[in-house]
């Protein structure tokens, strides 16, 4: 039960932190915010790696492996495309 209570505590507090930070992000940066937060929601990759590596059965390893592929696309693609967009916003003032 302790683990559950700790988990719920973390969950609720993180939502508050999220609200505090994200309401301060200007509308102009909402698309990068979406793709960037999307990339970090690929954190499921951590769970996928554990399933793929623990190899309890052939089946769970396969599920984990497929999950690794999807989550990695999400992570790598998400961070790269966000970076691409943000560079476009950044270069302006100097030019």
């Amino acid at each position, binding site marked *: 039960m302790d*683990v*559950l209570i700790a*988990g719920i505590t973390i969950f609720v507090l*993180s*939502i508050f*932190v999220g609200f505090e930070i*994200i*309401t301060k*992000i*200007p*509308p*102009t*940066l*909402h*698309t*990068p*915010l*979406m793709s*960037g*937060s*999307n*990339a*970090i*929601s690929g*954190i*499921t*990759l*951590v*769970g996928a*790696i554990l*399933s*793929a*590596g*623990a*190899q309890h*059965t052939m089946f*769970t390893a396969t*599920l*984990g*492996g*497929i*999950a*690794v*592929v*999807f989550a*990695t*696309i*999400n*992570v790598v*693609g*998400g*961070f*790269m*495309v966000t970076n*691409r967009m*943000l*560079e*476009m*916003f950044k*270069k302006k003032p100097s030019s």
Partner: protein
Amino acid sequence: MTDVIINLGYLVAAIFFIVGLKGLTHPRTAVRGNLFGACGMLLAIVITLTNHNIIGFEVILIGILVGAVIGALLATKIEMTSMPELVALFNGFGGIASVLVAGAALIESTLRTHFGAGGHGPLMQVTVATAASGLIGAVTFWGSLVAFGKLKGLISENAVLFKGQQVVNAILALLALALSVSVVMDPANISAYWLLVLVASLLGILLTIPVGGADMPVVVALLNSYSGVAAAATGFVLSNNVLIITGSLVGASGLILTKIMCKAMNRSLTNVLFGVMGPAAESATADEVYAGRVTSASPEEVALLFDAARRVVIVPGYGMAVSQAQQPLANLASMLAERGVEVEYAVHPVAGRMPGHMNVLLAEADVPYESLKDMDDINPYIDQMDVALIIGANDVVNPLARTDPSSPIAGMPIIDVDKARTVVIIKRSLSPGFAGIPNPLFAADNSLMLFGDGKKMVLDILAALKDT
């Protein structure tokens, strides 16, 4: 590594994510913020690889390699106009990953019970989280695929409605709930989990299919939130704090964006998701509004107008993205700026197909960040504008939102371009926007219609302006 060190490492990764998101509050710090996020992710992955339960790395490495190549290709090849599709697709991938991970974890935990290693079956909290993860993850995946298909034009962008849709949805939702209970009660029965995923998949499709094109920003933001919640649920399955923290951050982020989008359309979330816009029964027909009152102009006349102007505001809409007019538009703006005209852009929160869509396109065309103005910032002084140029926008500048309480868009905040001295509207025809109602702005005394393709018209104005 011990669990303590691993968990402390995860905490550091979570801090990186939070600091990274904080960096996104300003364009100057945003690139660094994104890098922080990526570093946090790298750290989380490396720590996970040291887990003593991992006995083979082949599957992991191959998976990461394949995923990284696909992800990198998608990220570098995508056109900025197609950004909503890509984000929708990535949302879906996050969702399906959660489904698979929770499924694998469920199987593993029941296996441990069978062989007596764990003693007792999976804890109730774990099975509840597993069901939630499977349900939300599958809805996210299929919902995102439908959104992707709609944005890409593979399936009808219009709202797809059929009789009894609500009833079917309700039955599916109840079925999903019953299957969730079954997963919790009897975790060893794995087929109940996959059945739940199947029902949730149908639900995901049916919930997204009725949403029309211009409501897409809401759906994309909502699915973004779901993908976060699914990750958080997976965190509860694995008792993994970094998943819980990150998932709830993303869940909150998506929810805020959803709220902003709904507010910008003056509609409730339920109305966007389930109701189509009410029929415009009371309002005037297109003929009554437009007959004999619409003045059309040539690019040359518009160029003369710009030549005499001191302050200009440009209002872009989805039509600008469709005709790829952003670069010529930016060139026009910088040419005007060189002649001493003050040019600003007014961006409505729901313009385009995802939050901030217009801003990204204009940033790609080298429009300075400072000249992109939010609706609320520009409205108070829009009456000082000599010319307002509307390109590919319709409903977001329709004054009926202010004047006609019976209109389907009544109360929706709009950019008050009708208060500018002259309004120039670049549009292919007088056809209505997503709301399906005529726009009296087009027939106003101070409005000029420039009929034609957005990009071509802007280029024509540019050419005419060079001659003056």
